[in-house]
């Protein structure tokens, strides 16, 4: 009986080891500078350096409740060290944090920056965090929200 218990415990260890996710670490996904991308007529943005095309039409609906008024507008986008994508734009109140998933970006967090619209937002890479500038205002963000 005792032997059976030992065998069962061993089998549980083997099962747990087999179920754990295999991760290559550490990784640095950070983009040195933000990308400023123009939305085309179909609602897509294209980042040539990182070979990325994504449809952001629904982001305008999220922010302005208007999914038609996007063509020609600019989206500012940056990726932090952990791999989260931060997006915002002129007249936005929020910064959207996404994580890439199969076939798209999954919304991880929506950070309210100010009740007033951002007039000239810009992202900077700051070690583990992302800095958001808006005129003379400066904010420090991560995927969880406002750091400062």
């Amino acid at each position, binding site marked *: 009986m005792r032997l059976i218990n030992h065998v069962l415990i061993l089998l549980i260890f083997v099962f747990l080891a087999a179920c754990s996710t295999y991760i290559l670490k550490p990784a640095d996904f950070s983009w*040195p*500078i*933000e*990308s*400023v991308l123009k939305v085309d007529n179909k609602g897509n943005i294209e980042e040539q*350096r990182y070979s990325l095309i994504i449809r952001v039409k629904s982001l305008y609906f999220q922010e302005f409740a208007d999914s038609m008024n996007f063509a020609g507008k600019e989206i*500012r986008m940056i990726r932090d060290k952990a791999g989260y994508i931060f997006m915002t734009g002129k007249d936005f109140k929020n910064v959207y944090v996404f994580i890439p998933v199969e076939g798209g970006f999954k919304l991880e967090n929506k950070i309210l920056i100010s009740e007033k619209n951002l007039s000239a937002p*810009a*992202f*900077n*890479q700051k070690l583990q965090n992302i800095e958001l*500038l808006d*005129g*003379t205002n*400066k904010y420090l963000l991560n995927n969880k929200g406002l750091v400062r």
Partner: protein
Amino acid sequence: MKLNGFFFLYAVFASLLFSQAITAQSDYEKTQNFKTRFKQIEDGIKNAGSLDECNMIDEHIARLRSDFTPDKTLLDKSLYPDNFESSFAKIERALEIRKGDFAQIGELKTEVGSLKDKISDLSQQNEGLLSQIKQLQILSSKDAQTIASLQKLVSQLKANIAQRDELVRGIVDSLLAEFVKTPGSLNDAEKQLVFKKVDSGNLFFNIERTISDNIQFMKVTQTTPQDLSNLKKQYSDFNKVWHQIGPKLADVYVSRKEKASEIANINNMFADWNNRLNDEIWGQVNKLFREKQLAVLPFKSGDQFVNSVNSFVDDELNNLPVKGATQAEKTFYTFADSVYFKTVQPTWIPILVENNMMTSANKDSIEKKITSWKTKAAPGAKMNWIYIAGVIVIVLLLIAYFTKGKKKVVVVQEPPKTEE
């Protein structure tokens, strides 16, 4: 004093605000600023018009480097696929190449300057020689001494013209090299360079003068077939180069009307030069027939030459019964042996064919016509039978002589002596 204190405080406050604004600059903006200034320098290098401008750009590069050295780490990452150092290496190399171009242009300018001096010397000499030749030709009594000095002057003029043509072509060639180096349309700086080169070499004037002197030379001197062949080659070479450079110069000078009209004038002068040369060559060939009182219609092209010979021969054959066989035969031999096969075919036809003034087919058709004329006009055919009969008789006589002259040789064999 109190006011000064407030002023100081305002200044400190303003500088604090300003410094905050500076520190609040986005990395993207910094990168874009760098890229904008970098692009301005690149354009500056491309459009630089002198070595001094290049040296000024050198200073701009140094300033850009010092302004952005604090952001080197950022730029190393954001200037992908280049980095901070490789970007500077790129523009510094481009600037060195541009400086090299100006050094080369400087050398060319000096070269063109010396060519210009030589050309004006030769042009003056040519003018003097031409007037001397004209004066000597006016003299009614030309003694041996006059003729000798005329010949000497002509050969000197010929050498001078050839030398001057070569110098002018040197300038044209160096301009052509400039166009080859920068194919496609030239930018403003490159256009300025071409203007300078054309002006400093007084190019248009010199080309016009070269053409007019060559035409003048033909007018005042007796040209030989060899002279005309050389002149035609000179024309073809020069015209070929001008055809390469003329349209490009016309593009460059499209906004300067007086220069554009000069280019058009040079095109006309080239056409005139060619026409005069062709007229001279055809004129001399026509003259050969006229000198022998052969009424060949005047011609100025290969086809006309064929038609004139054909109609002359046809006329001759039609008039054969009226003129009589002896006269017709005489005309044929004068035409064929004294003119065509003696001078036209060996001397002029190669020049005409080589310069595309007539074709080999034209030549063949003339010679075919002469052959058909010979069978009818020259009784050479009858004579041939007499000659053949004569030859046969001579051969028969020789055979008879040898067979008759052979004597039979009788061999007498003595019987062998028997020993007793």
